[in-house]
């Protein structure tokens, strides 16, 4: 569903992505792992259509990222990107009107699982609650590709647990792929089908998670430590 060849993205001071070749298949959860500054966010933004390649190309569902692909991709950025002055109900109504694949029937259930109510104001939510809300908005769509940029970073254990559970329970392995970026593998260890280790803008390791465990005799978390620390 995603084909990336020779992707290079240059910022004034660094080469954020330095020749990425990557194919994302349907029906899998990908772990995009790497330390801060390894280019994870940049790669996801390129797929989401918020950054444009300097070299190489990206095809999402056979097209260059743009308005058409945005309708088919759910993107959860690392920062808080929701209108803070809105209530949860208001932001839900807002995004529901924008996405043709919004699942109205699903939202209430997801909010309830995340212990959120529509009356709450976004600027009164804790960091963990805001992260949970972001995930609800990403998962309440019938998309084939979900991009989650650091969905767990800086959260309390209970929020982390809830988020991992929701990714698992909402993942539709028949026709959907999830790319999850993180710099701490920890509790996401068991989620991954495929693992991509990103280091200074290049792919260091890319393989099936189970194969890596078998070949190295290490958990993904330990392998991550060994490669990067």
């Amino acid at each position, binding site marked *: 569903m995603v084909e990336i060849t020779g992707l290079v993205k240059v910022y004034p001071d660094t080469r954020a992505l330095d020749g990425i070749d990557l194919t994302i298949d349907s029906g899998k959860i990908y772990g995009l792992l790497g330390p801060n500054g390894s280019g994870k966010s940049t790669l996801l*933004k390129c797929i989401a259509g918020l950054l444009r390649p300097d070299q190489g190309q990206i095809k999402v569902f056979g097209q260059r990222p743009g308005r058409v692909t945005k309708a088919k991709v759910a993107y959860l950025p690392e920062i808080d990107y929701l209108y803070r002055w809105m209530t949860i109900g208001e932001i839900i109504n807002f995004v529901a009107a924008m996405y043709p694949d919004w699942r109205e029937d699903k939202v209430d259930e997801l909010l309830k699982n995340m212990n959120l109510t529509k009356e709450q104001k976004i600027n009164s939510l804790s960091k963990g609650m805001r992260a949970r809300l972001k995930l609800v908005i990403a998962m309440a769509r019938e998309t084939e590709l979900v991009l989650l940029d650091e969905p767990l970073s800086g959260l309390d254990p209970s929020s982390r647990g809830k988020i991992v559970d929701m990714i698992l329970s909402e993942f539709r392995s028949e026709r959907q792929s999830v790319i999850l970026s993180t710099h701490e593998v920890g509790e996401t260890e068991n989620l991954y089908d495929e693992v991509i280790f990103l280091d200074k803008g290049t792919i260091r390791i890319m393989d099936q998670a189970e194969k890596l465990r078998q070949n190295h005799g290490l958990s993904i978390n330990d392998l991550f430590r060994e490669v990067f620390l």
Partner: protein
Amino acid sequence: MKAFWQLLRKELLAQRWAVGILLGLSFVWHLLLYSKIGIWYPQAILSLGLIPFFFIHLWILWISIQVYRTEWAEDTAYLLLSLPVSSWLITGVKLLTVVLYTCFSLLVIAASYFTFFRGEIISAIQPYLMYLETGWYKRDLINIGLILFIFFVGSIMLIHFSYICSRMVNRLRGLVLIWVFLLSNWVCSQLANLIEPLLNWLPTFGVDLPYVEFGNLMLREYRIPSSPFVSYILVVFGLFALGNWLWEKQIELA
């Protein structure tokens, strides 16, 4: 359609403080002047009461930038730019928001002006009231109002275009914004001059200029071609379209 209403609702609510501040200040100012009735000269009060109408120009400039700037300042640009909607919907709603709020504010400030200083206004225009009896000014009001409205909306469109351009660079955005705005105004006048001859088949419209001769009101009609205005509109739309293209194809979120 649902997307349009949600976007418009969002813009209106997001900028409601800006309108509140403008109207609040204007109200307080008028109230202050109202308390000086009988103390200050009526002419001074009437003139000073018009200050909000001048101030609103600066306010329009500010809120025009504000409808875009807040999206970046609060990181909501990430949401806005990942929506699968046409850039025209987003930029159009932002433009509409500024236009609606400006018209609304003008109406409220005018209402406040006429309410607070009703007596002063009536006595000030009393001597001239006889000249207004025929209602000749109605056509002028509509035509001049329309011209002002075109330049007002055109200017906001150029500000919005300039803001989008300033988002294409990483440094000195404020400077780029001002520079592009000045340049685009210049480009507009140059291009409009080029196009204008092609449009001289468009009709002219009349504006009556009054003057008083031997105590009688006389009107002199000036015919104004509409082609300069139409060519200005075309060029502004061209730049606005370019801004939309930049929004959809070029803007990046680092």
